[in-house]
Every structure is written in structure tokens, then in C-alpha cells.
């Protein structure tokens, strides 16, 4: 799928609405919309609804692929049970304005939902989804995507990336899917000049410099090994003392994928639904017998961090963190993952 010669264009800012209007006619478009000072990815009908003055959306866009409540199938209740599968989502969708870090989270989640057993709900949506990203010109205080060799203006995980370079957008087409999208509205775009690409480089450099917080990861393997050694260190207990176990970090994490499955019924019908769950709750692992393999907050906090920085790299060779900073922003007691991981360097087993 990769197009070797990545094509670059520019799109004048005043033509953005026109372009989006064209896209809306063929795709269900989800874009950042402001609501009560927070940004959400919502389906839009009109380009004027879009608000690009944001860093991170309140809820990560994973919600569009891995919905908070998903009906797995329906059944009739009672003696004669019949299962009706839910109709699959075949609508063509497009996320406009996704940040490079959130787009990366999709690539990370793919590992889980592909795997040995293919998850049809996630994968059909993923297959029919185009990602038009927007570079992060002004990363926020807790952004640290650069700690994972990534860039706030990276086009690696999107199909098309726009970068605001003043009066126009610098458009990078990442793959065949993106090429088709741009091709169909070619009139609006003009090929980028060298001046434009230099401007993009300036934007990238500026964005890099804005990111002042860094997680100290020299090498993924070293970190994995280090975490293996300090698994039993009292360090984790000290961190977890503060934790309220509220689960906001997991719900807002773009790579957290844990879920619960429940049956909901009325007298005659029912459905099996899948809802987000959080490993920060004691009920999450509680056995019916009363035994709990992760009984303390320490176990749960450690599991969350290890899942991202140890287990995930072991299984899929990638750290399950994109550096969006949502968990840091939203932790009510300032458990700061940058701090937690950076300090592990000094922890003794």
C-alpha cells in the first residue's frame, strides 16, 4: 500500500471548507467539535462545526473504533433462544483532524484486535476509516510523543496529514488510500514547493522545541528488562499509595483496550454488550470465589504501567503509550507517568 514517493501538496486555508464539504458528501466525517470547553470527535454535517484550536480531545478518538458501548449481538429471551448478529458498519468514515499521536494509538490497538482472533467490530470500522491528521503546532504541557521517537507532525499513522504553515496547509499523502482521497478533489490542491516543505520543517522544529517534558527511554529493551528486575520493588507501593483507583487514566488513554461483557435484557429480548472497563477497579479481576489476583491498588497501578511499558513491548514489540499526556492531565492526584517511568532508572530491585 505504501507509496514510495510521498506526494506533497498545499491547500489554501480558505479552501478547507470546500474540501470538507466535498468529503462530507461521500464520507461520514468525524471532526473535533467544542462542547463546554472540551473537544470531542463528533460527526459533522457542516465544516463550520469544526474547531481546530485544541491539543487533545477530551475522549481519545479510539471511541470511534472501539465504542464505549458496543452491541455484540442480540437474542430473544426465554425458552426459544435465537441469536441475531448486529449489522456490520459498512459506512465509509473519515476522521478529520486526528492528532498524529492518536493516530498512532490505532496502529497500537490493531495488534490487540487483529491477533489470533479477529475482532469484527473494530476491524470493519478500521477498514472503512480514513484518517486525515493535523499536525500539532502547539503541543501542550504534558505532551511527550517525542520520547517514543515520534513527532507531533508525523504522518506515519495517518492517510493524509495537514500541517498549518501559515496561510495554507501543507498536505502529505501517506498511502494509496490517502492518494485516492486527494485525487478525487485534486482541483483544490497545488503541488508543494520547496519553500512550503521548508516551512513545514520549521513548524516541526518549533513543535519539537515546545515539548519540554521527556520520558527518559533510551531503548525499549533496556526499559523492559529494567521493569522486569524491579517488579517487586517497594517503588510501586509508594506510587500506588496516592492512587484513588478512579480509572480516569484508563478511560481516557488512547491505547487502553480493556472491556467488560454484560448481558442486558428486557422481558422478551436481550443483547450482549461490550463496555469499556478499567484495570484500576478491584472488581475487574475479582474471582467469583472471592480470590483476587490483584487485590491491592499497588498491584493494579503496577499492572497498568507494566501493561504499557513491559507486557505490550514483550508481546507486540511496541510501547503501548503514545505520549498524549491525557492521563497526566486528568489524574486528580498527580500520578505522572513521565515521572514514574523516568524515575525507574534509579530504582533498585
Amino acid at each position: 500500500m505504501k507509496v514510495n514517493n510521498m506526494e506533497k501538496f498545499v491547500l489554501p486555508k480558505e479552501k478547507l471548507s470546500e474540501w470538507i464539504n466535498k468529503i462530507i458528501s461521500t464520507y461520514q466525517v468525524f471532526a473535533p467539535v467544542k462542547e463546554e470547553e472540551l473537544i470531542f470527535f463528533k460527526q459533522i454535517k457542516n465544516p463550520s462545526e469544526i474547531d481546530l484550536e485544541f491539543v487533545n480531545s477530551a475522549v481519545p478518538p479510539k471511541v470511534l473504533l472501539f465504542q464505549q458501548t458496543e452491541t455484540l449481538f442480540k437474542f430473544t429471551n426465554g425458552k426459544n433462544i435465537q441469536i441475531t448478529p448486529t449489522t456490520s458498519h459498512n459506512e465509509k468514515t473519515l476522521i478529520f483532524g486526528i492528532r498524529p499521536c492518536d493516530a498512532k494509538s490505532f496502529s497500537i490497538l490493531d495488534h490487540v484486535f487483529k491477533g489470533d482472533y479477529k475482532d469484527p467490530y473494530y476491524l470493519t470500522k478500521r477498514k472503512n476509516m480514513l484518517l486525515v491528521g493535523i499536525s500539532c503546532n502547539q503541543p501542550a504541557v504534558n505532551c511527550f510523543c517525542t520520547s517514543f521517537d515520534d513527532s507531533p507532525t508525523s504522518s506515519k499513522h495517518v492517510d493524509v496529514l495537514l500541517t498549518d504553515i501559515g496561510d495554507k496547509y501543507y498536505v502529505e499523502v501517506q498511502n494509496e488510500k490517502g492518494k485516492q482521497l486527494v485525487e478525487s478533489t485534486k482541483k483544490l490542491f497545488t503541488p508543494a514547493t520547496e519553500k512550503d516543505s521548508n516551512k513545514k520543517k520549521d513548524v516541526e522544529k518549533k513543535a519539537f522545541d515546545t515539548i519540554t517534558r521527556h520520558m527518559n527511554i533510551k531503548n525499549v529493551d533496556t526499559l523492559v528488562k529494567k521493569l522486569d528486575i524491579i517488579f517487586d520493588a517497594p517503588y510501586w507501593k509508594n506510587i500506588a499509595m496516592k492512587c484513588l483507583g478512579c480509572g480516569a487514566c484508563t478511560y481516557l488513554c488512547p491505547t487502553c483496550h480493556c472491556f467488560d461483557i454484560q448481558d442486558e435484557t428486557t422481558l422478551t429480548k436481550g443483547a450482549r454488550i461490550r463496555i469499556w472497563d478499567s484495570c484500576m477497579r478491584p472488581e475487574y479481576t475479582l474471582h467469583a470465589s472471592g480470590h483476587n489476583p490483584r487485590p491491592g491498588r499497588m498491584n493494579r497501578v503496577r499492572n497498568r504501567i507494566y501493561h504499557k511499558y513491559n507486557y505490550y513491548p514483550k508481546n507486540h514489540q511496541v510501547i503501548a503509550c503514545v505520549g498524549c499526556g491525557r492521563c497526566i492531565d486528568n489524574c486528580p492526584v498527580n500520578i505522572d507517568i513521565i515521572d514514574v517511568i523516568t524515575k525507574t532508572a534509579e530504582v533498585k530491585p
Partner: protein
Amino acid sequence: MVNEKQLKTEAKKLVARDDVKYVIGYEKGTYGFQVTPCFAFTPEDTERFIFSPLCVHNLAVYFMLEEKPPLRKGEKEDTRKIGVVVKGCDARAVVQILQEKGLKRENIVIIGVPCTGIIDPKKINAKFPHQVKTVDVKEEGNNFVFNINGKTHNIPKEELLFEKCKQCEYPTPVISDILLGEPIKGSKKEEYKEIKTLEKKALQEKWKFWSKEFERCIRCYACRNACPLCYCKECIVDQLSPQWIQRSVNLSENTVWNIIRAYHLAGRCSGCGECERACPMNIPLTKLNKKIEKDIKELFEYIAGLNPEEKPLLAMFKPNDTEETIL
């Protein structure tokens, strides 16, 4: 504001005591205007203690989070006390827990801090959005003084204070073993202005307002966990049989969750506002809690969290309670 030196000395003395397990206070956070809870197990740990108008957390919640793993053979229960630094509103939460017998008085030591108002993190972060280095704040008269990157900023208190602090009636802890500094007499009056405005709106307007708020709820239950008074062994949302509140996240279930959460705090909520601060979706939960607080004040002349000997509001009655709406 409190003398930090005195706080450290008192905390140090406290931790050094044999019958005290640890003391919970505040320390500097990892960035910007963050302050974070600090657990002091040794006298040296108390060196990190601070107290500033940035200390938002209600530390009383940690009493209820104390984990008691099952005792091993021959092991004795650790009955040592836990010390905690509390502000006015936090102290009322402690009183309320004591009133409900969720805690034993002899198991806790309270360091009371007369509070002159706390800065709303949302407001200060909006003012200085890209502040990485931790910042010190001082209080001078009616201003907060920040020293940011060598520049001094004087900002009027009114601009930054939590709404709850502007109407705080109990700035001095109503309960404490050690009170730092001079008690402050509560001079403000809670007038429930916002609540009254909303009350006066038409039913449809109100529902429009709340349904928009509740629709956003992602049911992370951060509100529940941040609340020192939400300490049920099994929360109603976790209950499976009967499952009163379904797990689906939609307006119906979200509304019920929010109503029930607020209702479970009826006559108990001390108004510390931790639920609203923890909410990542900015749902104005204090508007719900304060409404109930106002009602019980009017209907039953009751204020939560003032007297540990009193009976909880909903566990007692007066023969002449209101009958206005009963058929």
C-alpha cells in the same frame, strides 16, 4: 496561610510517635501548579511537606482507601493511627465519616489548617497553560503572588479561587487534634446563587441543561473514587444482582448514576468539590450536591459534618418534618 515550618515540625513530631503509622500531607507536584499527596512514614519524609493555596486534595479520602489485607497466622492487626492534614471542608468530611462510624476517632490524628481559600486548578492552568516548572504561590492580602520564570505575577484572589471557597462558611477545621495557626472566623455566607438561578428555570430548560451534561459522562466513576464519603464496600453501580444501573453508557443510565450518586451523599456531602475536580468531562457535580445541601438546610435545618456525635440526617427524623407535598 499556614506557616510551613510549623506544619513540618508538628508533622515530624507526629510521625515520630510510636502509635502513628504515617502522616498524609501535601508535597510539590511534578509540573506546573500541581501539588500531590505525600505520605510521610519517617520524620525525614515530612521535610517534603508543603502547604499552599494549591493544595486542593481532600486527604480524608485516604482514610477510606487504607487497605487491610487479611492477617497472616500469628500476625496482629496494625492499630496505629493515621495522621492527616485537613482544611475546613476536608474536616467536615472527616466528621461525617466519624458520625457514620466509618472510622474510629482513636485511629486518626488530625492536623487542622485554617484555610483562606484554594486556587481552582482549572482557572490557574487556563492563565498559564504551558507551565512545566513547578511554581510557588504566596498569599499577600487579597492577591496571590506567583513567581514564574523570574517574573512576579500578582493576581487578585477572587479571580482564581474555587467557587466553593468564595462562599465557605467553615474555613477552620471543625475537628482537629493539632490546629496550626489562629482559627479563622467564617465570615462568608453560602447563598446558593447558582442553584437558585437554575431552580427557577422551567422544567424543560433544566432537563435540557442536565441532559447535555449527563450525556457527556463516560462513567469512569472518578467522582465516586475521589469522594471521601463514597466508601461503600460494594457500590451500587458494581452490583450485579440486582443490577440497578446497567453498564451501557447512554443518557438514561448516566442520568440515573448521577442522580443516585448525588442522592447517596444527601446530608453527607461536605462540599469539598473533589468530585467535580476529578471529573474529566467537566460535569458540574457540585451543582447537584449543593442543591441537596440547600434543601436539607431549608427542610430539616441540617448541615452535614459539624458534629460527630449527631445522627446522620437520613437515619433520624423529627415528628414534624415537612408534609407539604404528601397527599
